[in-house]
């Protein structure tokens, strides 16, 4: 699995950080998403997929391979 974030789209909802804190974080100055793990470990995949579904701004893309 590869994760991509579309930073300009992010609205700093914090949902991804709440669901998958090992993969996503937020910038200190404005809460915008930071991708910590472009290729997260398999045990994190379910949370990453859930983050992509829940993200209100469609800013998270999961490329499965």
């Amino acid at each position, binding site marked *: 699995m590869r994760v991509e974030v579309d930073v300009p789209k992010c609205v700093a909802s914090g949902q991804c950080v709440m669901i998958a804190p090992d993969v996503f974080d937020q910038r200190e100055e404005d809460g915008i998403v930071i991708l910590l793990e472009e290729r997260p470990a398999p045990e994190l995949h379910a949370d990453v997929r859930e983050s992509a*579904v829940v993200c*209100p701004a469609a800013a998270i893309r999961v490329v499965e391979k």
Partner: protein
Amino acid sequence: MTETLAETTAEAEEPLPEFPMPRATGCPFAPPPTAQALHTERPVTRVRLWDGSAPWLVTRYADQRALLGDPRVSSEATRPGFPHASAGFRENAGRRRSFITMDDPEHARIRRMVTAPFAIKRIEAMRPEIQRITDELIDTMLAGPAPADLVRALALPLPSLVICKLLGVPYEDHDFFQRNSSKLINRHSSVEEVVGANEALTDYLDGLVAAKLANPADDMLSELASRVTAGELTQRDAANMGVLLLIAGHETTANMIALGTVALLENPDQLAVLRETEDPKVIARAVEELLRYLTIVHNGRRRVALEDIEIGGETIRAGEGIIVYTSTGNWDSEVFAEPERLDIGRDARRHMAFGFGIHQCLGQPLARVELQVVYGTLYRRIPTLRLATGVDQLPFKDDGLVYGVYELPVTWAS
């Protein structure tokens, strides 16, 4: 052919359902039966508003997500066709502009000025303080006479104290701002009442911003004041934002605390789970389920189409109003099995109680921590908590933008 014609005529003559619709007597938590019927029969359909206008009501989860995430759908309340909740709301739309009624890119520019304090880590750092305030409020209630009103003892003061601290608003003024904010969000308020409450609150916040310009502190109003100095905002814009944050910061969570307690007391098996757990994951799940089940911001997300949009087999034309009715979306059985069941063990994270799209709630991390602390504390500390009156006697807030109860008399074994 004849049949189709007859059907079309019948449909055209049938009066449109009026919106908002009443809830069924005895079912204070369920979305109105008419709305539930539309959800199955005509998921995208026109309804009649107080002013005779006929915007679209969208009741299905999938259509709602699509629309709230669609840049062709606008939140600008000053556009013609925007479905206002009352004459007062319409009158206020032009006077009170804050980012909740702006579209991108303007919305994004302004929202980002206030996102930092709501980042997950910053809010998590406030948890001990939120726990301390909750414990103190419960201590005070227990030291006083029973029955007590849970709204005034805990549900309202907790989020008010927290948002006041975050913004830099003196909590001593809570009678003033709570009175005016409940007037502002009541759809039965007259135009004069809404405009008057708005002016009073904006002038008040304007004065506070001016004070922070002279004497900055470590709070959000001071941050906004520094944006005024930098020429990024006018002082009035900053005051409008202050009003939005102050109202959104206490009216919502307060109702979730009180109405959530009613729902749990009515579902003793679910309450028992919360009373007996210390597992933060169990409590966090319960919060999401209560948010879904109650969908307290129950007036629908109000929008207007900027272009023609095909959705659910209908065409919404440019300039037509849209009401995205998340109350039924959150009770959509295609997404949430047995939606009418309050089941705090289910995974309800996909709910839209905080909205969806670019306007999704800015304060959600704070609301979540406040609710996790309260639901994780109140029933453990007062295991005998019960209503001091019948559920059917409770004064429900059917007339407000936010659903809840005006009062919640509770009692306990001392």
